[in-house]
């Protein structure tokens, strides 16, 4: 373990499908509260969490236009966590499984998020203090 104050998270859920996604992001936020470096390996549907072309929309049923609706986007959450990590001077790394990205066509990702594969998960896990995996149903 070369990074005793770093935690690794592997996650499989896509955006806008599962309550797990909310808990996952809350866990990352809680880790940063503890001034812990965070490393994420996004697998399968989770690679769409950082897709740069996510767009907010209005909601006629809610009676709100796009600005009023202020629809949550997971790419914005990732950016918010990146900023929080910078402010607390801890690391925040994010690797998307490259094959999972290709098959979904979500190659256009926000800045600060990279592309890799399972060897990166193993490297993240062996370097970190601990690892939590959250699969999908």
């Amino acid at each position, binding site marked *: 373990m070369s990074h005793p*104050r770093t935690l690794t998270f592997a996650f499989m859920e896509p955006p806008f499908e599962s309550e797990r996604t909310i808990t996952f992001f809350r866990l990352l936020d809680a880790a940063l509260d503890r001034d812990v470096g965070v490393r994420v390996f996004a697998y399968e549907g989770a690679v769409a969490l950082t897709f740069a072309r996510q767009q907010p929309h209005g909601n006629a049923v809610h009676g709100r236009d796009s600005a009023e609706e202020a629809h949550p986007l997971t790419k914005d959450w990732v950016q918010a966590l990146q900023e929080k990590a910078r402010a607390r001077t801890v690391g925040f790394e994010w690797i998307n499984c490259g094959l999972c990205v290709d098959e979904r066509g979500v190659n256009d990702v926000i800045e600060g998020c990279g592309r890799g594969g399972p060897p990166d998960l193993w490297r993240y896990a062996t370097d970190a203090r601990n690892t939590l995996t959250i*699969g999908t149903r």
Partner: protein
Amino acid sequence: MSQYLFIQSQDPFTESRTRHQFDLIGQLHEAGHDVSVLLVQNGVTPARRGARTGSFDRLLDWGVPVLADTFSLEQREIDDADLKDNIGLSSLHVVIDAMLANGKVIWH
């Protein structure tokens, strides 16, 4: 003795697997390990007083420490007073603390 924290997102009303998950938690507890459970998402639903969930209640009977995520409770309008006895409130920071303590943190 190892430290285990199970993050319990599945609930016994929809997932029959939880019965075996609770049994495993109980076995590890009986084996003398430091085992605790954090209920999250619909995993908090058996914590409500009056919820009929024998397999979950056995965990409480065995004395396994059980916490419930305040955000998940708030979503479901479950107050502290609505909880069964011996269930504590917690934020997700307990997960981070367990990971930093080299605990085995396992998502259910």
